[in-house]
């Protein structure tokens, strides 16, 4: 696409970033991510502090602990990584409606998470491409995923620029890339049979160092995690070919040909290259030439967000579970806030010990991002219906809902601020219980005591004149459930009654007023005779005869 600009958000070491996102208190400590819980599990990636203390990837946990006694080992969690990828996509969606998550690669860069977004025309929002890149970096960092950001004319160029930045970045995620690079040194530097291995290794190290020195941005660069590329071909030409992540046989063949830089590959004739290296070289050549791909798709309509955590030890009590839920809610809230959304109803799924499952939906009266309120709602639900066994995994999902906009009117009373009101309503529901807070509504029924509760969302309305100025009107006070009464009846009319509300002789009575309905349903049908009764003890109440049950009850008093 002519004139299009693509931004690439790249997190170089996703397992480590996802683990630190879930446990930010480990950020400054020696942390290693292992494939499993056992002592022989392989270390996948290590934090800068662990690397400084001599811990290296692709060793076992025992070896790593021998190098660093204070090492914190965490097991790589697919749930956390999935959530981190989704969070990165949310960051992209906060800036552009056209985004795409790159599929996980299988080679040298298997640990990276990449998201592309269409940066064309975003200058009006962020002043410049550098402003956009800085905003993306800041938002992703706020979500616990410090990324590198590159903007270029095509997806491959942006991706390669981001990889180059990540390689030159002296942060935790470069550790793995460098280690992988060392592992693959023989492959990249053209190890050939029949030559002196020590000399080859020395040569390879020199070449790697030379390439790394060229890639590393100068120390004076104000934003070392941001790269803006204006001339794609000129930018790509001097870069090392391993940034394209070629398959091992292809990399070996290219090395044999003496091709080390992307520019050298891009200059080769396509047909001759395909003849010698096969169809696999086509994609590599397209990447090297920065060929454009189909335009990025529009953003998905769904605003559903999910955060999950696989627990290393089963939880049996609510208190530690609340601690886990707080973290999940906090991350969920940050992701939604990044897109300007509030948290809707919560779907909580618990994986139980023994293979059981517990799924529940917790209603949220109004969209909010207040973690304290949401946590309270979850805890209330768990207290009311505890899970049947110890908890091994927690997944929390919600549908992001837009927060109510605040539109003030000069001539109308300003109600509560929408965000504050939403938080208050959610807080009240957590305090009083679900379904006990809302706007009263008249139910669509002829049943005299029918009522309903609707969501409370008052719109700004113009004042109206009271219907009857200068006079009040009599109101009823409902008794829920109705109070049973013993009634003496003469000629079909009550003459005295005894109940917890009113007692004595009936001084005046009006009625009966008969209401029947729902006769087609055995459970819901009703047939009631209502009387307005004034008793000798001074109570004016509404007495009713349930003609189906044959009971006398008082369902309201006039007050």
């Amino acid at each position, binding site marked *: 696409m002519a004139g299009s600009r693509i931004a690439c958000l790249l997190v170089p070491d996703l397992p480590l970033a996802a683990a630190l996102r879930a446990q930010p208190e480990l950020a400054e400590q020696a942390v290693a991510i292992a494939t499993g819980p056992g002592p022989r599990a392989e270390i996948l990636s290590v934090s800068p502090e662990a690397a400084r203390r001599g811990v290296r990837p692709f060793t076992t946990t025992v070896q790593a602990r021998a190098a660093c006694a204070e090492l914190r080992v965490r097991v790589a969690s697919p749930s956390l990584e999935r959530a981190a990828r989704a969070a990165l996509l949310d960051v992209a969606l906060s800036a552009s409606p056209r985004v795409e998550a790159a599929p996980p690669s299988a080679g040298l860069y298997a640990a990276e998470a990449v998201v592309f977004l269409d940066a064309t025309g975003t200058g009006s929002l962020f002043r410049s491409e550098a402003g956009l890149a800085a905003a993306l970096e800041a938002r992703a960092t706020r979500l616990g995923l410090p990324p590198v950001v590159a903007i270029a004319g095509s997806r491959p160029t942006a991706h390669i620029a981001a990889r180059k930045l990540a390689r030159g970045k002296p942060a935790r995620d470069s550790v793995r890339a460098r280690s992988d690079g060392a592992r693959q040194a023989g492959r990249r530097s053209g190890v050939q049979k029949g030559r002196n291995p020590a000399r080859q290794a020395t040569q390879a190290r020199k070449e790697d160092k030379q390439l790394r020195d060229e890639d590393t941005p100068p120390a004076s660069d104000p934003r070392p995690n941001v790269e803006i590329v204006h001339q794609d071909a000129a930018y790509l030409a001097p870069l090392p070919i391993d940034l394209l992540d070629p398959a091992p046989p292809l990399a070996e063949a290219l090395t044999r040909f003496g091709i080390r830089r992307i520019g050298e590959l891009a200059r080769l004739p396509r047909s001759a290259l395909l003849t010698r290296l096969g169809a696999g070289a086509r994609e590599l050549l397209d990447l090297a030439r920065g060929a454009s791909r189909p335009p990025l798709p529009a953003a998905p309509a769904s605003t559903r967000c999910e955060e999950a955590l696989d627990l290393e030890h089963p939880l049996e009590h609510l208190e530690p579970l609340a601690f886990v839920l707080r973290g999940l809610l906090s991350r969920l809230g940050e992701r939604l806030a990044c897109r300007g959304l509030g948290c809707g109803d919560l779907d909580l799924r618990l994986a139980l010990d023994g293979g059981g499952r517990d799924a529940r939906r917790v209603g949220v009266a109004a969209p909010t991002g207040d973690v304290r309120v949401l946590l309270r709602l979850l805890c209330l639900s768990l207290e009311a219906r505890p899970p049947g066994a110890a908890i091994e995994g927690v997944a929390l999902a919600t549908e992001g809902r837009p927060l109510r906009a605040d539109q003030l009117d000069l001539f109308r009373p300003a109600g509560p601020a929408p965000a504050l009101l939403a938080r208050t309503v959610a807080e009240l529901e957590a305090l009083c219980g679900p379904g*006990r807070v809302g706007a009263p509504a008249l139910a669509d029924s002829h049943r005299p005591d029918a009522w309903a509760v609707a969501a409370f969302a008052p719109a700004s*309305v113009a004042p*109206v004149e009271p219907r009857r100025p200068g006079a009040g009107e009599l109101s009823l006070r409902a008794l829920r459930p109705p109070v049973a009464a013993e009634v003496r009846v003469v000629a079909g009319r009550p003459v005295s009654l005894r109940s917890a509300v009113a007692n004595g002789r009936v001084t005046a009575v009006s009625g009966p007023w008969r209401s029947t309905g729902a006769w087609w349903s055995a459970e819901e049908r009703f047939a009631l005779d209502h009387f307005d009764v004034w008793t000798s003890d001074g109570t004016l109440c509404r007495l009713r005869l349930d003609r189906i049950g044959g009971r006398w009850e008082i369902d309201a008093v006039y007050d």
Partner: protein
Amino acid sequence: MEPEAAARPWPTGLRELDRLLGGGFPRGRLSEITGPVCGGRTSLGHALLARATAAGEVAALVEVADAFDPGSAHAAGTRLERVLWVRAPERRAALRSVEHLLLANGFGLVLLDLAGEAPARTARPRPRDARRGHLERTPAVWPRLRKAARAAGTALVVLGDRRCVGACADLAVETGTLRPRFTGTPPLLEGLEGEVHIVRNRLGPQLSRVPVRWPKPSGLRSPSARCARPAGACMRRCS
């Protein structure tokens, strides 16, 4: 909103009572309505809700006894969609709910209905309060709520069987036992008649008795013989 409008009290709709109260129940103050059952306190509370919502304000009703009748309030003129109805499970939750509502800072009226509340088993009134006929279970909360109401500019009205706010109330009104009016043959309930007693008023005259009349609103008809099938579904065409 202009300052005068913000300070304007909520009228009850009863002319004589509003005149004595200087326009109605004051905003930014803590007021109290007490009285026996069938004394008209709920009608007075609903009148305030109706006036507040008619003025375009947002109001809140917090209650413990689950006694609010939406049909009755609607018949009295309340715009139900502008009322936040909180059905608290117990008194402490109700008081905390009121505090949250006042901190939300935008409600014109908050009505706390403690009438009909079941007496607590554990709490006992102090001997001094018992002599005065008070049931002072949470004395520390009222100064706090009064301060919050003043900061929010919200009229906080407590409705109860007996006085519980004590000296924190800027206005206290007691409703007496009312007499119903039945007229016609067969007899029909027309309304209630009686009087309201201003027992405490920091902003104006007190110890005044005002005759009041609460007519039964036309919208609050006693249920008539109608079929409750969905509209158009009834074969008898009785709806």
